[in-house]
């Protein structure tokens, strides 16, 4: 019983939030890693692409809600998601047309594109705030929990509760589906292979009859879809707030890099490494140890390695250590 309580406590406060947050980061990191692998630069505008895509979804959701359209126990936002994705696709394609394509044609070095993407970030930033403002937007509806802590306690009779939110469930399932789809697409389909070829050797891809603009277009479409899905899932789970989306960029990049930039599996793994390092290292083990240890030697202090003030710093330390031993990331990135 005590052991079960300890297990449930760890699951509830470490495992489940870690998995959900990890999936959110992984989806974001996938987008970053795709742009890096195929378009060859670190896209600073990714966080704001997420924000814009989510914004469109939020607006659609409100429209649906006002028309009384719902999605049963699931959040209405899922119905609005395709519209958000379509908006993000139009946005990224438009940006590519107006901004990135010029530099691609000039054969600008990737670093120039990185700085250009910073300029795009600023502009997206302004657009998002202009349209939807700076406030918190809660657009979740439908059933909140798959299982709530209270129900769990009642069901099992344990002292500790275990809560699984609908959004957490959706996030994890979506992440799995999206990743599987992406893998199938990249490794099995003609278009996917042409993307890998382009990423490997641009000129030779041209000589094989691959149309580079098409590859770029498909990449942006996928990236827009990934960004919107990641943004909406994140927004459903927490809330939608433009500033937070900009801040998300940092852990997302960290995830993509630990995993090995340019490597989709790496992006997934990286997301979880970052999420769990944030959650675990600063976790206070008092309660868990309290369950596991006999009464007499129960810890009186919090048994916390680091205070939560340092959770960000800690995840970076872990990142540095990983890179110290595996300079190209957990899974070999495209850099070797």
């Amino acid at each position, binding site marked *: 019983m005590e052991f079960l309580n300890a297990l449930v*406590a760890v699951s509830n406060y470490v495992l*489940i*939030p870690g998995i959900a947050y990890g999936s959110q980061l992984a989806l974001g990191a996938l987008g970053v890693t795709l742009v890096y692998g195929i378009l060859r630069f670190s896209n600073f505008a990714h966080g704001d692409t997420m924000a814009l895509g989510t914004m469109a979804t939020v607006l659609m959701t409100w429209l649906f809600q006002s028309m009384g359209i719902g999605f049963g126990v699931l959040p209405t936002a899922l119905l609005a998601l395709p519209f958000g994705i379509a908006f993000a696709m139009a946005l990224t394609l438009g940006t590519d047309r107006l901004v990135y394509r010029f530099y691609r044609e000039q054969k600008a070095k990737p670093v120039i594109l990185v700085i250009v993407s910073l300029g795009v970030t600023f502009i997206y930033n302004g657009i998002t705030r202009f349209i939807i403002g700076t*406030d*918190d937007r809660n657009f979740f509806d439908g059933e909140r929990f798959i299982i*709530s802590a209270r129900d769990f306690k009642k069901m099992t009779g344990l002292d500790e509760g275990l809560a699984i*939110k609908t959004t957490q469930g959706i996030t994890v399932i979506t992440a799995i589906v999206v990743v599987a789809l992406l893998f199938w697409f990249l490794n099995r389909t003609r278009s996917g292979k042409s993307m890998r070829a382009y990423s490997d050797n641009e000129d030779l891809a041209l000589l094989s009859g691959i149309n580079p603009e098409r590859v770029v277009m498909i990449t942006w479409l996928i990236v827009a879809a990934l960004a919107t899905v990641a943004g909406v899932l994140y927004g459903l789970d927490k809330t939608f707030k433009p*500033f937070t989306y900009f801040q998300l960029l940092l852990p997302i990049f960290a995830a993509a890099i630990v995993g090995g930039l340019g490597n989709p599996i790496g992006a997934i793994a990286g997301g979880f490494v970052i999420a769990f390092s944030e959650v675990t290292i600063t976790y*206070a083990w008092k309660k868990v140890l309290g369950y596991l240890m006999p009464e007499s030697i129960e810890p009186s202090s*919090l048994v916390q390695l680091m205070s939560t003030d340092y959770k960000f710093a800690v995840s970076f330390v872990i990142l540095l250590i990983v890179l110290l031993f595996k300079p190209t990331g957990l899974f070999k990135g495209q850099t070797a």
Partner: protein
Amino acid sequence: ESHAGDVKIGISFGFTGPIESLAGNMANGAEMAINEVSESGKLLDGAKVTATRADTGCIDNGLAVSGAERLISEGVNGIVGGDCSGVTGAILQNVAVPNGMVLISPSATSPGLSTMEDNGLFFRTSPSDAREGEVMAEILKERGIESIALTYTNNDFGKGLSDAISSSFEKVGGEVTIVAAHEDGKADYSAEVGALASAGGDILVVAGYLDQGGAGIIKAALDSGAFDTFGLPNGMVGDALPKNIGPDLDGSFGQIAGSEGPGIEAFKKMAEEVGFDGTSSYAPESYDAAALFLLAMQAAGSSDPAEYVGKITEVANAPGEKIYPGELAKALDLLKEGTDIDYVGASSVELIGPGESAGTYRIIEVQDGEIATLGFK
């Protein structure tokens, strides 16, 4: 048409950056007071009052100082701001004091600011941490709460407030199981909630902002079933919170500066008419800050900072007729007649010591998704 006696008030908030979601409503609050006075046509000799905004970025000293310098060059007669303590200190030291400009901040609570050489030019309408800590400790005690977990937003406001709460609560015999900081605007708060839950406690006291990390923490704590009642000090009390969180928040309680009388309710209604959320953090304080400027000018019969600065405490504090939001025209008339007033405003302003605010607190509880007033302390 403009005339020589027109009054300009600078508004220096972080319209971009981490608290951009608060700054808009704060500025709206201040501008509401300014418009109220301007439209009444009763200030000085029918002076028009206009507002000029300047961005501080909340965390960008250079930008804030440049903006304030610009306000000075545009000839403002007083500055409402800044918002975050860092930029407020920078503006105070580098612009206000050198230029003899009066600064009233609605939100900078850092005790460090009180020790600064301010030449008597700095005031704030935000309540004092120490007093609030005592009030909160009393409320907790009365409700029979023995232990709390405490989290604060990692800035001077949160830190100061949490220090005050934890020391007051321990003084009355309560136990603080953990004090954990959280950063605003971050992606995820599972780590904080995990640590807080593990430490345990009867309730979780959140010294943060209701539309920043504070809300995120409450959400995550409710979702994981870590806590179901929350202590909500100043900064967490506003209509947006129950609206965003939903029915689970019912039963959570706290306090916010404000005394009996129409105060905050009147302000809320006025804000609604203009079209913004009057319970958004520091919007009432911003209204009060702007109002204080104009009332002090009226009392002094001059818009020159050197002359009206002495009147600010006078109009803010008792004795005198109590003035609530929406009654600025009345106050101007009273002042013109030479009657003393006691500006209560939306946030129950009371200035004590070197420019600090203290006063009465309104005790609230969330009931049926609304903020209900239980009493005053």
